[in-house]
């Protein structure tokens, strides 16, 4: 009698584990990566960091006298955000203060998420945004994080009271499902996107510069045609 009881428990247990494994395998098997690239204008130069109003940022800025200057370049990784919107879960809204600025500086988050900005810089920051309750001036020491519950859809500018170059363009949308990783050369990639129909959106600073419909098929990696961005388009 004892031997029959011990044999039933392992069967139920095995069945349950097998079911779970099946669901997991089945899910994993459906997600596919999405790749693409954005193309910037050839002679595009990012806006000067000099303040329109206010004192000059320096007394001296001169060529070193030895090596030719490097041309100014857009920090694509920081300032271009490529996202998918549609049906699905939120990818989360974690961002950083890194290298002395927000990374990314163009932030797309989903309403209802908890916005979290971690300070990985060696210096403190004092982030604030006008119009968002809960994002008043507050110092965030190195290693700490600033959090905020995103309760409404909208667009806001996050600034730093200590550093004028620190600016974050927060876009809170309702149907964010995936946030792509953008590289300096303009290539981006989404990993593990569930099959279905989505809208690919590209944000640059305070505006959306591109949007297109994409269909993700099961089991097929999607490569989106390169998107030529017009970064001079005014904010919509």
């Amino acid at each position: 009698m004892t031997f029959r009881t011990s044999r039933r428990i392992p069967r139920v247990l095995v069945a349950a584990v097998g079911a779970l494994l099946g669901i997991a395998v089945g899910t994993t098997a459906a997600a596919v990566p999405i790749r693409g690239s954005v193309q910037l204008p050839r002679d595009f130069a990012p806006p000067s960091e000099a303040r329109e109003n206010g004192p000059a940022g320096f007394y001296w800025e001169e060529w070193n006298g030895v090596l030719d200057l490097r041309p100014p370049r857009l920090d694509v990784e920081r300032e271009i955000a490529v996202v998918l919107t549609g049906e699905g879960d939120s990818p989360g809204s974690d961002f950083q203060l890194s290298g002395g600025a927000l990374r990314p500086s163009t932030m797309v988050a989903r309403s209802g998420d908890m916005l979290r900005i971690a300070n990985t810089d060696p210096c403190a920051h004092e982030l604030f945004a006008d119009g968002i309750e809960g994002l008043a001036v507050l110092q965030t020491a190195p290693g700490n994080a600033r959090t905020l519950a995103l309760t409404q859809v909208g667009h806001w500018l996050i600034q730093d009271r200590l550093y004028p170059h620190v600016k974050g363009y927060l876009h809170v949308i309702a149907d964010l499902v995936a946030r792509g990783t953008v590289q300096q050369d303009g290539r981006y990639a989404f990993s593990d996107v569930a099959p279905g129909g989505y809208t690919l959106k590209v944000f640059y600073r305070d505006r959306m510069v591109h949007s297109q419909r994409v269909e993700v098929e099961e089991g097929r990696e999607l490569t989106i045609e390169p998107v030529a961005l017009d970064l001079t388009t005014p904010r919509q």
Partner: protein
Amino acid sequence: MLLSRFWYFALATAVFAAMTAALLTQAAFNRQYDSDINDQLRRDRFEIELMLKMDARSRIDAIAPIAANGDIRSALRTASGRENGAAMPADVSQRLGQRLRDLNRQLEGVAGEIVFAVDKNGDIVAQVGGTNVPSGASLGAFPLVDRALSGYVRDDVWVYNGQAYRMAARPVIDSGQYVGAIVHGKGLDDELARRLSDRLDGATVAFFMRDRVIGRHMPAGEAARAEEIEAPLVQALTDERLQQGGRTDPVDLGGNSRAVYSLVTGGAAHAQVGYAVARPRHQLASSWQIFDLIAFDDVKALPLPVLIGVPALLFFLGMLFVWLERDRPYGRLKRHAARLASREIDRFTITDFGGGYRKVASSVNDAMDKLVEQVAATSPKRKAANLDEILAPAPQAGVKPAPFFGFAGQQAQEADADIPDVPPASPGPAARGPLAAPFGPGDAPQPYRPMAPPPPGPRPPGPPPAAPPGPRPPMPGAGFRAPAPPLPMPAGGPGASSPFPALAPAPGQAAGQRAEAPSMDGLGGSRGSARPGWAKGTLLGVGDPNAIASGSSGDGGFPEDDEAATMVAEVPRELLAAAHSADPDEGHFREVFERFVEAKKECGEPVVGLTYEKMSQTLRKNRDQIVSRHGARTVRFTVYVKDGKAALKATPIKE
């Protein structure tokens, strides 16, 4: 007083101008001082900007050896060559940190308080000073570092972990590539404020971050304190010009200093990091305080001759005006008043004075006139001086005139006749009586003789006449001094060369007998015992010869009624000769007038309106009347005092 008044006006105007100048000088000084201090503060701010710029340049140049150091370059090349996402090699960081520390120490005065060595991405490889760096920390997004990594040398101002730093960065180049950058930082602190303040000579320099001062230096002596600079910070930071990169207008700090505020040139301006420069502000609280600012050299430079000479000249000029317009006319008035008091003059001559003094003189004259009128009104009514009445009216027609002689009884009754009674001639000695008093003005009424009686002249060779008696004592109530003596007798006696011929001795009178007393009516001469036919009457007429003989006159023969005391004596021949002039009596009239005026003054009577012309006219008229009525050759008038008043008596002269 025009000059004096003008002088007083000029003096008041000068005082007004001086006071106004003093007050305006105070206001002008304060305003000019404020303007000067504002200009000084603007220059100070400009100099601070220059000094900070040169300081930035010096730091940029100072870190060049560090950026060019081989160890630094190789270490950064190694760090920049690692794979993306790979951790920083620890030994590289350690070696680089040590080398960085050594090189920074060699900078001495320019040594950084924080120094970073970053790779080509801005990741911190090594650090000197500051807080612990989290692993993988980067500074690549800071514009200073980003531009340095692009090949620029540049400066900036950071707020790094609560402190303000003056930053400088240079790229590190190795093998033709940018492998990283050196980032150097020095604090915005008291030391920098001291260096800047020393260069500005007396200015307070302070650095601030938002509403607090983070570095300061106050020079010795009067200087603005940090608390005073901090107080207006909140207000100053809202200044639009300051926010746009300029400076504020000069701001008063507690009333004793002024300051201008400005943000720094760099990223820290966004964090409201700036500096203030202040200077003491001296204001004159009163006009007197300007004397505290006077130096000895200023006094030495004063034109003393002008400063002393001009006021002295103006002073003497003013004194001259005062003397001309006040002292001199006042002195004149005083002298005339003294003369008026001593009766040298009867009244002020107003043309002798000018201006207000003329009015004073006129007022005094008016007052005297009114006083006279008031006295005249309150005193018993006295008829106006009428010489006709004094001289007695002429006998009326149909009325038998009083006998020329022998008027003793009648004279007393006709005392008010127009023509005064001619006193009868003095009777002979026999008829006279032993107690007959000599005729003359010694009898009442007393003639007015202001002078002392002369000594009697020598007796004539003939029967020596008795010396004329002295003047009788005045009647009670006459109130005048001893009557004047009679006219001096001729040297040869009454019959000598006197203008009044002596009377011939009376018939029956032997020479040597005592002659009758001569007339004392001013005619001189002596009574003679032989009288002319017309000169019959009672000498010293007075009254009834019988009364005289009986001695009933009461006073030894002198009549009580003095109006009958005149005796007509023989008219001296000289007198008759003197009557050959156009108006031979002119001299007599003049003399009578003078004596009459004098008598009135002695009696205290007014003499206003009494002129010689009027009196002589009256005398002349009465003389003519008496002469025509009595057949006299002329008339002689005498002045006497009656009841305390001056009066005249007429005596016709037959020959």
